[in-house]
């Protein structure tokens, strides 16, 4: 068990900078998820931590030790790969025992550890099989087992669930989380799936284009995104955005004017006059009924799509050149092409600078 610290870590491949000035502190025993779209640098950061990529600048420390120049086998880490990377010609038992044998552990200890991991992961019946005879889910568990037996200071996981079907993925998510809770090993987990990140991470680090956009608990990221990218990335369905011009209104509030948009907000005096990007969480937009009922609006637009999910429905509405997702409980009779009116909930709104994408905090001074 050890803490992990990235300090101003960068990685360059020729002219391309894959990771830029990454600084991240992970506590001992914490489960941190690195999440972001492809090319965000999350996998590169993980591989640098593993020692599979060299570090162009900065320092990585595991525990008290700076490991920049330390070979992977000396770092006391274990890694679970996306394609599991099981040794195809060896039995599951030998796969699990491989790393321990390389480290010259005595035979009895190896046997103990393998059986312990097999028990934890329920793969005891598979020990004599070869990887080719395993299903995807079983192979994935063997890969986890191979990491477990090593009793390392840090677990590294590179999108281990991507190759599983959706149902198995959800199930295994829970198992991994439970396992980590039991062994309490520091875990760094990479995924591109923000739902996975939100359900598994103690803390989440959102990366984009090599840069760490924000790190925080799932709640922090959801409620207080620090920029437009994080706001649009986290949350499902994603946040909708539109651009409007803000101007102070006579009644003490703010008037937002955009294409087909004319809204009055009872708050927001701190918004600078001029164009601003407004983000709307889907559950923060509701169909207009009986005079609004406290909603801000109305906004009028045309239905673009209807996503009926049984218990709830999300209606995509085109307003001017923006498309906003509107939440409706249960089902709706709306069809694409229908005209519709909807309003916004005050606490479903977030504001971002049009130029920088930075969040404009409510009550903050003018940017």
């Amino acid at each position: 068990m050890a803490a992990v610290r990235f300090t101003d870590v960068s990685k360059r491949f020729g002219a391309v900078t894959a990771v830029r000035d990454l600084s991240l502190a992970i506590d001992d025993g914490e489960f941190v998820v690195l999440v972001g779209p492809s090319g965000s640098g999350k996998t590169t950061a993980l591989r640098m931590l593993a020692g599979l990529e060299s570090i162009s600048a900065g320092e990585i420390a595991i525990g008290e030790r700076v490991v920049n120049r330390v070979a992977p086998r000396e770092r006391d880490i274990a890694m679970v790969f996306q394609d599991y990377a099981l040794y195809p010609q060896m039995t599951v038992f030998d796969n699990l025992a491989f790393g321990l044998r390389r480290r010259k552990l005595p035979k009895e200890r190896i046997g103990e550890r393998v059986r312990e991991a097999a028990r934890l992961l329920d793969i005891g019946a598979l020990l004599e099989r070869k990887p080719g005879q395993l299903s995807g889910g079983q192979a994935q568990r063997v890969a986890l087992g191979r990491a477990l037996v090593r009793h390392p200071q840090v677990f590294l996981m590179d999108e281990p669930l991507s190759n599983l079907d959706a149902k198995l993925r959800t199930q295994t998510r829970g198992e991994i989380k439970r396992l980590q809770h039991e062994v309490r090993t520091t875990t760094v987990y990479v995924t591109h799936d923000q739902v996975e990140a939100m359900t598994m991470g103690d803390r989440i680090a959102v990366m984009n284009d090599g840069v760490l956009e924000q790190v925080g608990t799932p709640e922090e990221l959801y409620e207080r995104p620090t920029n437009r990218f994080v706001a649009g990335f986290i949350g499902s369905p994603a946040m909708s955005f539109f651009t409007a011009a803000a101007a102070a209104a006579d009644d003490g509030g703010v008037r937002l004017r955009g294409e087909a948009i004319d809204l009055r907000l009872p708050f927001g005096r701190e918004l600078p006059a001029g164009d601003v990007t407004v983000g709307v969480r889907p559950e923060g937009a509701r169909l207009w009924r009986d005079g609004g009922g406290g909603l801000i609006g109305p906004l009028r637009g045309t239905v673009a799509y209807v996503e009926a999910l049984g218990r709830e429905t999300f209606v995509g509405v085109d307003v001017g050149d923006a498309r906003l997702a509107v939440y409706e409980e249960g089902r709706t009779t709306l069809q694409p092409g229908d005209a519709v009116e909807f309003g916004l909930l005050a606490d479903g709104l977030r504001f971002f600078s049009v130029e920088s994408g930075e969040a404009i905090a409510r009550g903050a001074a003018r940017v």
Partner: protein
Amino acid sequence: MTSRRDLSVTYAILGAFSLFALLPIVGIVFTAVQDQGALAAFGTFHGVHLGNFADAWRDGNFGTYLRSSAIVAISVVAAAVLLSILAGYAFGLMRFRGAEVLFYVFLLGLMIPTEAIIVPLYYDFRDLGLTDTYWALILPQAGTSVAFGTFWMRAYFRSVPRSLVEAARIDGASSWFTLWRVLLPLARPAVLTMTVLLFMWTWNEFLLALVMVSDEGLRTAPLGLSFFQGRNTSNLTLLAAGAVIVAMPVVVVYVFLQRHFIRGMLSGAVKG
């Protein structure tokens, strides 16, 4: 959606060309099993008379020639396979300065025909007193075989999933251990293909033996056949028997391992 007519035409053409490919071979086998006295012409069949093979083996000395070929082929193939695996591993999975340039050198070496280097090879070996030895046959062929083998094994190692190598590295395996215990068990088909191709090329090599060897005891099978022909223009059955003996080993290996031969040649295998 093929018409019956199209399909029969195709089968007919395939059949005709296959037959044409087979005929001369069948012809020489028939000639080889003919009784010397009853010989009419090439390829006629009058019953099986296997004595020709025994005669060729003894009087024609083909036993000696086969042994010589076997010694050369096995040595060349064993050495080349080992060295190619090592070099292919380095080119395929390791990054080091000058790797690209060095590999291009191997690639070009693939296209250098024996005809280009036979002359200096002869004179160099002569000066070293090594003509008329197995070394003169083994070493040059090992050189050209390593060029092909390295190219082949590099292609194989590059196709191995990187994550497997990385997992082994994290688990603490050295590069040597990873090569022999993790990667090679998987590489069996690729190594087998390389082995049969190198065996075929080495066994069938003629020019090198012709130039390097004059001692009859060292003659390889193709060279032996060429001399035999020179002596036996009239005794067709014996000549045919000798020819069949020379071609046999490779054909037998081919029949059992044809998948590997074909796969190898289809990927453009060419050796200088």
